[in-house]
């Protein structure tokens, strides 16, 4: 099972004030702690939905996306990314040697971060039957 996380909702409930932006290390740590409470101990695949999230800075990209990807789940999926979100995630994941997979509107997946690290993630999704290869050769999430 893929655990779906609505980041905007987590951001609103994790902190004392209802912020719209994922900025600062303390915010990132609080949001990650809330996500980890939701994730089952053996959760292997999680999907972070960025829809409605304003800005994410490098600090939150590291505290949330890089650390969940490195320490908590085998495959981290993201969706609802804006170009601004990507600007923060790409260099942080690249520097950490990590990748996450971004689900497009049609379900196909593309890598964010270090491209070389994305291959094993796609294989893992295919193995768990969370994704299939399309006729065009892309990998897409299996419809729920």
């Amino acid at each position, binding site marked *: 099972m893929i655990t779906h996380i609505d980041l905007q909702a987590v951001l609103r409930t994790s902190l004392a*004030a209802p*912020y*719209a*932006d994922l*900025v*600062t*290390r*303390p*915010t990132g740590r609080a949001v990650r702690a809330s996500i980890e409470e939701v994730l089952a101990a053996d959760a292997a695949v999680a999907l972070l939905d960025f829809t409605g999230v*304003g*800005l994410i*800075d*490098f*600090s939150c990209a*590291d*505290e949330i996306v*890089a*650390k969940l990807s490195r320490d908590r789940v085998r495959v981290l999926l993201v969706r609802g990314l*804006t*170009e*601004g979100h990507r*600007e*923060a995630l790409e*260099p*942080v994941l690249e*520097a*950490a040697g990590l990748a996450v997979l971004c689900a497009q509107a049609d379900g196909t997946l593309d890598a964010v971060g270090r491209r070389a690290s994305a291959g094993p993630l796609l294989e893992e999704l295919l193995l768990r039957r969370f994704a299939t290869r399309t006729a065009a050769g892309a990998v897409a999430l299996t419809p729920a």
Partner: protein
Amino acid sequence: MTRLVEVPTQFDDRSFDQFAASYAAAAADGARLLFDAHATEWASPYGLVGLLAAGQAAGGGGEKPLLTVPTNTDVAGYWARAGFFREAAELFEVHGKVPRVRPAEESDVLLPVTPVRAAEDVHDVVSRIQQRASAILAAKVGLDPRATMGFAMALSEACQNIVEHAGTGGWVAVQSYHWRRRLARRVVVIAVADAGVGFQHSLEPSQARRFGGRWGDAAALEAALIQGVSRFRDPGRGQGLAGIRRYLTRWNGKIAIRSGTARIAIVPSWDDDVPMQEGLAPFPGAQVLLIVPEQDSAEP
């Protein structure tokens, strides 16, 4: 006894070292300081937040330092609109006429002088800059819409340096203006200053041994800005300044950081600054300057 610290007539990053030298000389014996700005004709956001940092450091011993207000009413009015006097009232015994002004709706002050003490303040700064500045940055300053997204990120990371490393509060200000003489274009300037522990002290436990005899303010700035090191062992740390640097390189911008007795800069082709200056007059904390110029249609 009161000692005089002269505020330069044109007070910006270029004249800051003159101000720092005057401050260092006057502060040496712990006497009460008088910051004399009566003849100041212009101050950049960098000058304003730097002056607050000096006031913070000078008042650390107890008695507030003195500050004379610029006698030029236009100058004093701008300082008031920029939010300077609101913050200065906490730090200085202010002498002179402080104009009562309302922040103008149509203003080049994108973010008035704003205190940064905690993560909540960074949220507030980022939220305000996005509401106020995005349209202005794109329409008036000609920044590519993609550059405005990274601008808020750079601002966030610059402010977080205070929260994470300074050990005290600081200030940020953002303004756009037309740089006729230096660039013949509009620019957006972020200025951040604190009177905290500075880069050398912050990085000393983790970096001093690695640099050996070279260790000092310049080596600390080099480690932070060029090598992306942090005082934290967490491998994900140190990305803030690296991200700012990447952003400014992409949009042909400039970053300069002064801390202690050194100043480092990533210098774009349009500027004639030097990459590193050492042996400057000591000044507490860190002062950060980010400049993003109006973009040519062909850039980047």
